[in-house]
């Protein structure tokens, strides 16, 4: 058992999977000698060489498109998009090709590929280095979308993603990279994609969240407990396919649901979670389904005060949780 930070968990899982399966390779901008702009692939170039840790040209559509081709041939590319904000040039390859390949070929051709991308704000990144982009992908069946929140989850979920037979988008909140440390077992393990995780059990309110917000909500839940309210915190972990059962169970348990995410509220992930609850658990509810999310603006601004205004925080979570608990 080692204590790793979130970024180290990414790197060590990549290393372990590359050692385990020689078909696994990494490709993206600056992943080679530099080891990635965040250091996620640091040292892998020395161990695996310039083919398996491949610097790509500055072309996201090609990173994904070449990855798809390689996957069609049977190899297992792990594509890195330098910032999630730069995934849009590859959107056509992801939506039209990766997501539809198995379906359109009746299973003859498949795309066992992972696309990793750091996302999220609060790092002085401005509009184009702060976005949450998960909601652009979750309406596309054929894709899987995973967002881990702890080093332990990173390892189990990234290993599962790499071994998955279908394309998996793996979004890493860059605000967690160095901020979050945790125990990571040394041996091989998998966390199944499509399963949510109760990160804290509780009885009064249910908080459904993912990514960095998990930590804010857990911190807020501690505070809330001191005020006498018990919060269940469900970490979705996978956004597509959603763990419908876990959501319904958690919602029914307390009858009061708050959904929290950093991405903008309207037409965000929380919308589907709330809709599912409104469809399946209506008569178990004791309060309107609440959402605490980023504001509906084009992207996160740069200047400190505005960035802070955008970002979630334990305080903002606590306030929303308290209001719901007192409803």
């Amino acid at each position, binding site marked *: 058992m080692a204590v790793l930070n979130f970024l180290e968990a990414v790197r060590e899982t990549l290393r372990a999977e590359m050692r385990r399966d020689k078909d696994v390779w990494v490709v993206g901008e600056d992943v080679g000698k530099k080891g990635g702009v965040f250091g996620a692939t640091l040292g892998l170039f020395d161990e695996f060489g310039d083919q398996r840790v491949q610097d790509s040209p500055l072309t996201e559509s090609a990173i994904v498109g070449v990855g798809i*081709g*390689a996957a069609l*041939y049977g*190899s297992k590319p792990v594509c890195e998009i330098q910032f999630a904000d730069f995934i849009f040039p590859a959107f056509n*390859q992801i939506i039209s090709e990766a997501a539809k390949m198995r379906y359109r070929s009746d299973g003859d051709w498949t795309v066992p590929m992972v696309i990793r991308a750091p996302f999220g704000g609060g790092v002085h990144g401005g509009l184009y280095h702060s976005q949450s982009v998960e909601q652009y992908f979750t309406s596309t069946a054929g894709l899987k979308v995973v967002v881990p929140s702890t080093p332990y989850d990173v390892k189990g979920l990234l290993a599962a993603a790499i071994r998955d037979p279908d394309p998996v988008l793996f979004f890493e909140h860059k605000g967690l990279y160095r901020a979050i440390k945790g125990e990571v077992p040394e041996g091989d393990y998998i966390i199944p994609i499509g399963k949510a995780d109760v990160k804290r059990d509780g009885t009064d309110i249910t908080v459904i969240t993912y990514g960095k917000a998990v930590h804010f909500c857990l911190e807020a839940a501690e505070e809330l407990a001191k005020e006498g309210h018990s919060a269940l915190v469900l970490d979705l972990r996978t956004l597509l396919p959603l763990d419908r059962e876990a959501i319904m169970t958690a919602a029914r348990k307390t009858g009061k649901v708050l959904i929290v995410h950093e991405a903008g509220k309207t037409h965000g992930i929380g919308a589907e979670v709330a809709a599912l609850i409104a469809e399946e658990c209506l008569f178990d509810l004791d309060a309107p389904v609440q959402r605490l999310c980023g504001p509906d603006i084009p992207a996160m601004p740069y200047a400190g005060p505005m960035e802070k205004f955008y970002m979630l925080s334990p305080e903002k979570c606590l306030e929303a949780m308290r209001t719901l608990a007192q409803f």
Partner: protein
Amino acid sequence: MTANTQARHEALGLTRDQLLEMYYYMLLTRRIDERLWLLQRGGKIPFVISPQGAEAAQVGGAYAFRRNQDWFLPYYRDLGINLVAGVTPREIMLSAFARRSDPSSGGKQMPNHWGNRGANVVSGSSPVTTQLLHAVGIAQASRMRGDDVVVYTCCGEGSANQGDWHEALNWAGLHNLPVIFMVQNNQYAISVPLEKQVAGGSIAARGKGYGMPGVQVDGTDLLAVYEAFKEAHDRAMRGEGPSLIEALCLRITSHSSDDDQRRYRSAEEIEAMKAGDPLTKIKHYLAEHGLLDDAGSAEIDVRVKAEVDDATEWAESQPYADPEFALSQVYGEG
């Protein structure tokens, strides 16, 4: 022909049998397509998009590849490529009729969106030029495994202006990958003529900017195409990297069964294409060189017709997938 001048096909190392086989594939390509138009006009299938005018480019190109070893990422007109790669007329017709046993998709995809695992023909989509990047990825992965594979991929001249086209050629050039990029330049992208698509007018001229040869060839001349591809294929096998081949083709039909080219092409322009018909040209060559007499020609006609008849009837008699098949193959088994 004088006795001591080597015929062009001989100079290229092609035997009479090989040449006749190429002719057979060209004819088969044409006749299948003609049948599809009939089926479409008769209301039996909703849609046709046609290789007519590109048969020499397709068959001449495909013939330089190794069946069951090389890989193919064709575009929607590439019926001839599929046939030479080993896809059968029955399989083509199954996909035209969208039947359950269509090997491309079980009827999920439109016709001409081929895919055939057995023949190394990779599943294609509609958005143009996405497959060029897949071709590059296949070349890269096969090289990593140490496999001896050359990859064919193709698109039209209009499509060659898409961003993915640029990214694919650049990537292949960087890694010196064994990919042959063909552009079938038939002067039109639906209604938009070459001069509104390709700045400077030449696709081949772009090769240099990716550090690879860019060759323009008369795509209605079977042997010229074969020669260009043979050379490119040899280069690829020698590890000398990718090639770009622009084949000047004709688009004899409208863009597809949804189009009427008389709206944007003059009657004279359409009429003028007859003279350049690649099938007429190869027939002429065969006759000129005494390689195929009338009887032999009629025999091939009969054989091709029988195959097309068989494929059509058989495929039409095959069942559709059940409606719920629409829900299948979204995800694999973990």
